[in-house]
């Protein structure tokens, strides 16, 4: 398990960062603020990309650094890749203003 490097910044976070290439089915242990949990990665996660550390419901805020980084576009299971396909920014959304 130690061969995979990850970073889980805060126990409030719903995502963690891969600091090495993570293959599908990789088991990773995450620790933050004396909180520890084990996750099985569902799909390959590239260096620097994020994965869900718990199930996230569609519309829920996604948290990293203990702060909101966007909202889930779909339901996201724990261990799934979290990126622009299932996370949308909430700020600067001129496209969402009714004209």
């Amino acid at each position, binding site marked *: 398990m130690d061969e995979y490097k990850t970073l889980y910044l805060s126990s409030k976070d719903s995502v963690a960062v891969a600091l090495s290439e993570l293959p599908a089915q990789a088991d990773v242990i995450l620790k933050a603020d004396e909180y520890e949990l084990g996750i099985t990665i569902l799909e390959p996660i590239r260096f620097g*990309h994020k994965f869900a550390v718990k199930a996230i419901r569609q519309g829920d805020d996604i948290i990293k650094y203990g702060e*909101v980084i966007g909202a889930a576009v779909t339901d996201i299971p724990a261990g799934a890749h*979290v*990126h622009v396909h299932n996370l949308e*920014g*909430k700020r*600067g*959304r001129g496209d969402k203003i009714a004209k």
Partner: protein
Amino acid sequence: MLNEKMQFWGYRRPDGRVGVRNHVLILPTITCATQTAQRVTELVSGTVTFIHQHGCAQVGTDYDQTARTYAGFGMNPNVYGVIVLGLGCETHQAHRIGDEIAKCGKPVETISIQDHGGTLQTIAEVAKIAVRMVQDASMVQRELCDFSELIVGTECGGSDACSGLSANPAVGRTSDMIVEQGGTAILAETTELIGAEHLLAKRAANDQVAKKAYAVIKMMENRSIEMGVDIRTGNPSPGNIEGGLSSLEEKSLGASTKSGTTRLEEVIDYAQQPTKKGLVWMDTPGHDIEQLTGMVAGGAQIVLFTSGRGTPTGSPIAPVIKISTNTPMFDRMNENMDLNAGTIVDGEETVGEVGMRIMDEIKSVSNGKLTKSEILKQHDFGIWRIGPTF
């Protein structure tokens, strides 16, 4: 943190400010004069200039901002003297910019191409003045100065998911150390603070500063809202997304760590000189060259630039120390990058250790060590235009 007072060898200017470089700047106030200025720098060693597309058919606050940027660039203490070069008929009249720069007491000459009968005679005239100015500049001796006289700009460009984990927090430590030494650190790129403004406002020196922090964020965010677009179509950029950043808020939370932990003393306008020491937020866009130009025009003698994707960026008058967020890019683009903070992600160094290493590099570069972008003559310049061209 440091206990000892840090010093460097700098060039004292007539207005009391200190430079870490001793350039003669040929400052073209209009795009039409940039090629002529370029020719002079090819003839006369010790001179620098830059290419740009501004200086005419500008009005109102957009005119003011461009004028402030030109004048600030000329007044930057890294510049010994300035030859302001105009065409003659442009809105940004060379003599007005020249008069503004001359207020700080340094040598300033103003020349216009139309008054000198064309390109070739202007080149000869500017070159003659430049020869004299470069020789005068070469006789200025460096003297021992305190770090409290430094204004250090900070920025990130070509960010990746490591930016907020390695290089940006390390620059944050450096920023804290600069402030502790009594100096000034500039945080910029308002766009890339959208989503992190509440954290910065909490650190504001007073209510007014906090209000201005929220106000500049709102103005920047409203630009995308008025255009009816998702800001993510432009920022984060394709390279940021490739590197693992999914939203502007995520990028911003990483970018804001460059500010360290000290009190936010003031929020200033683009290309404005800070009126306070300590941590200062300059309202700039996220565009790498535009924010760099704004900070240098505001008086920054040195800029720290973190990058995950890699960049050649440099300024004609200020050394830019480029810091890699990850080791593979530092190795791949070594000719462009000065320091590696990827060691934090590799588990080899702490954020504090890299912050100290950046501080040591600031000292070396202030004393004269050339950065990669200076050696490669990367003379970038770009003004944040806030109005249309007429």
